């Protein structure tokens, strides 16, 4: 596969490490959320057959974490974003 890195352009997926569903960005706050909330966050997945937003790490590249929107049936990649930008857009900070 080839991932079109927002900064570096097309790069071979072999340079990346896959983590999983990009929803992992939305980590609950441990001081307020309890076990049930964390359980749902960490363990349950939509696992769609179709568009999937997922986290890839450019380990053998620029060490950026990316949010890749990919079709899990055709493997077509529709969108690639910097995970840090996505996280901030979703209101994450410190």
């Amino acid at each position, binding site marked *: 596969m080839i991932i079109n890195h927002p900064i570096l352009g097309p790069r071979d997926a072999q340079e990346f490490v896959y983590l999983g569903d990009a929803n992992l960005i939305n980590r609950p706050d*441990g*001081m307020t959320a309890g076990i049930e909330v964390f359980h749902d966050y*960490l363990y349950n997945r939509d696992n769609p057959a179709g568009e999937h937003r997922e986290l890839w790490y450019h*380990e053998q590249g620029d060490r950026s974490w990316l949010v890749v929107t990919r079709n899990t049936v055709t493997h077509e990649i529709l969108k690639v974003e*910097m995970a840090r930008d996505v*996280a901030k857009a979703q209101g994450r900070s410190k």
Partner: protein
Amino acid sequence: MSQSNRISGGQIDRSKTFRFTFDGHTYTGHPGDTLASALLANGVRLMGRSFKYHRPRGPISAGSEEPNALVHLRSGARQEPNTRATVAELFDGLEATSQNAWPSLKLDAMAINDRLNSFFTAGFYYKTFMWPAAFWEKVYEPIIRRAAGLGALSKEEDPDEYDKGFLHCDLLVIGAGPAGLMAALTAGRAGARVVLADEDFRMGGRLNAETHEVGGQAGADWAAGVVAELAAMSNVRLMTRTTIVGAFDHGIYSAVERVSDHLAVPMAGKPRQTLWRIYSKRAILAGGATERPIAFENNDRPGIMLAGALRAYANRWGVAAGDRVAVFTNNDDGLRTAKDLQAKGVDVAAVIDSREGGDLLPGIRHLQGTQVIDSSGGLGLKSVTVRLANGKTETISCTALGVSGGWNPNVNITSHHRSRPEWREDIAAFVPGTGGPAGLTAAGAANGALSTHGALLTGQAQAIAALTDLGLTAKAANLPKAEDAPIAISPLWYVHEGKGRAWIDQQNDVTVKDVKLAHKENFTSVEHLKRYTTLGMATDQGKTGNVLGIAVMAELTGQSIPATGTTIYRPPYTPVAMGTLAGRSRGKEFKPFRLTPSHKWAAEQGAIFVEVGNWLRTQWVPKPGETTWRESVDREVLATRRLVGICDVTTLGKIDIQGTDAGAFLDKVYANTFSTLAVGKCRYGLMLREDGMVFDDGTTARMGEHEFVMTTTTANAVTVFRHLEYCRQCLWPDMDVQIISTTEAWAQFSVAGPNARKLLQKIVDQDISDAAFPYMGAGNITVQGLRGRLFRISFSGELAYEIAVPTRYGDAMIRKLMEAGAEFDAIVYGTEALGVMRIEKGHVAGGELNGQSTALNMGLGKMVSKKKDSIGMVLSQREGMNQPDGYRLVGVKPVDPKATISAGSHFMEIGAPVELASDGGWLTSKVYSPHLGSDIALGYLKAGDQKIGRRMRAVNFLTKTDTEVEIVSPHFFDPEGERLRG
């Protein structure tokens, strides 16, 4: 006999003669020959035996679709099983032997299977060999396994080298026949970056095998001219002997270049084959088409081949496959074979044409409305029996029969993404369907354009379309004039007459009868048909047989062929050597070595090294006179505890963490608190996964207000760094934290033992007295003027430091330390002694850090702070991970000090029955403690914290040992830790 069947013409170099052997007989051929063409030229038709019935077989094709003529090519360690004689390029001294036959190809004892064929129907083995149960492995299966298989491996290491590479292009053209050449020419002239690959050693495809003219010259000459023009373009890369074997995501194709297979041995330094990953923006499949046979009784005899192959041998290689030939066809293309061979002076006995009406071939006995119903000839064709239009039968003697049932476009690669081909009635064949690999289109015969003109036209059109997609403009040049005859096929799949077997898949011996049986037993889905009869499962993936099988099933079910379905081809297009896929990553080069800064010195000392991940670490350093590893390790441990020992700990992961939020960041990633750590101090850190299990541990030092140095275990250095980047970018993106690995930048040594300080003070420029540099102190220092770092931490439990200097000085550092340590009899200890000392101190490592254990299991539960949010804090509180009778880390020693225990043993209560219910846990790590004079171990024991002082058994069924042990605190040695504070 010497090339008795060689006739005039062809693209072989008759000025040179090659000598080669097949089954020990010597023959001659010429450059440009394949093994098959050369053997046929020498009158050899019998080249192999079939898989199940061991039927005698000759080549039916002249290409990579060949199911029959499979041989052992070369000998010894270079023996290549299942090599297709039809594509094996002839070289001087080539050595080939037949396979799957004993004692000889001519008299194969296993041919008895052919006599017993009525028992060996499709799937017969599913219905028998069941009694008695034990007999399967012992009796039936060994016989079946010996009989099965085709060729044999030498079982010696492959002596050849393999290479890999990457290519990039705008347009990949797969196949260099008329369509591919035209596509490449069009794109090349437009200035696009083009890769043109063809599996053959000569470009031109069918044009090399036909007599048609292209643009007023012989097709082969036109092809040569185009190849010459392309070769002159710097933007075009021509790759002969290169097969595109797989289509992967986003325009990536795998290709195998046979760099040296046409030579007796590869040239020095050169690979045998190269695996290319081709990154293309667009690709055109111009892989041509494969002719298919018509099934009739005994249609598998040597001498019976595809009509196009018979023609190719005559036109390209100057070989008449037989002295008297006949043709059996259901389409006009078959007629060409008769015309061409007659034109070359070969005796054409008859053309058996299943179609009615139409023009008769002039000067040839052209029998219409007729079918071949049987053939004769034990090891080679002698005659065919024909059912004439008038109902009479006639036997026609001939030694070669060309059969044409039509042509199947080579859709294989278009279905590698599981796109299903679509049926086209006019050519009675499947063409590429929709939903194939993005960016790939098909042209020429591969797309159903079976005429030369159609190939040229579509090749050009597809190239223009592909380039337009890419924003490039390509001109449509005038196409050279070429034949444009329709195939005029009227489908005939199998001859219904006759009680015998009519072969569909020749290699796997799948016959029309087998398809009928599958239908009878309701294996009618194409996938069931394939799996039940093994149709298409042979080394040719059914290139010649699949469509035939589907057509027969369609007739039986009364469904149309498209309704009956298709099977999709899977990568690779043709089989690929494992060596090619592995490339250089074999033997010692399977994975790169990582060497420590003291490696050179250690090697000089005769150190024993051990693989730790990709690292090579010193395991122990034997001294003269030491005969066992234990002697060396015991000495290293005792010397360290009594005096001072030095160990290279560079492999531990080191990560610089800086920024104004560095402390707050560490509070998030560590279960315990770091923001409160004073500058100049270090602290043991426990890192959890989000699921609350222990991920990693290590000491982290605060070198400045906004500057930390984190240590990880050797094993997790990479994954911890990845995790930190994840936390930094995805979870807390606004934190001011910058991280970088410094694992390799610093050579780090542990200096441990009562004399550690004395030793170090000799070379460290600053005062490191206990007052100036207390326990858990950390700081930047200089070592005889050289910048360095010092950490007062201890894994061994001794007064210990870790001292670091830039890696290039690591070798000098170990020599300095040994020199400075001479007066204290300093020694170097390896990973074994390190392991002994950490277990004596009850520190967790590999065996305990198994990814399945909580802080509580390790006796570190209190380290998980609930006062702050950290990764894993919440889920570590789940009930199942906090059971009072859960596993706890304990120390273990045998009641009898002389007794041995082993890691992996399980705990059992004394007197308890040996059963699952008695299982109390297991020993995680075990060493011999010279200090305590016995084996000691760590273990996870259920409710272990409540069982200290209890006696239990350590049971190991694998070594048949059952040892009484005492459960003790994991801190065997200096539990109060006075020594390390000393």
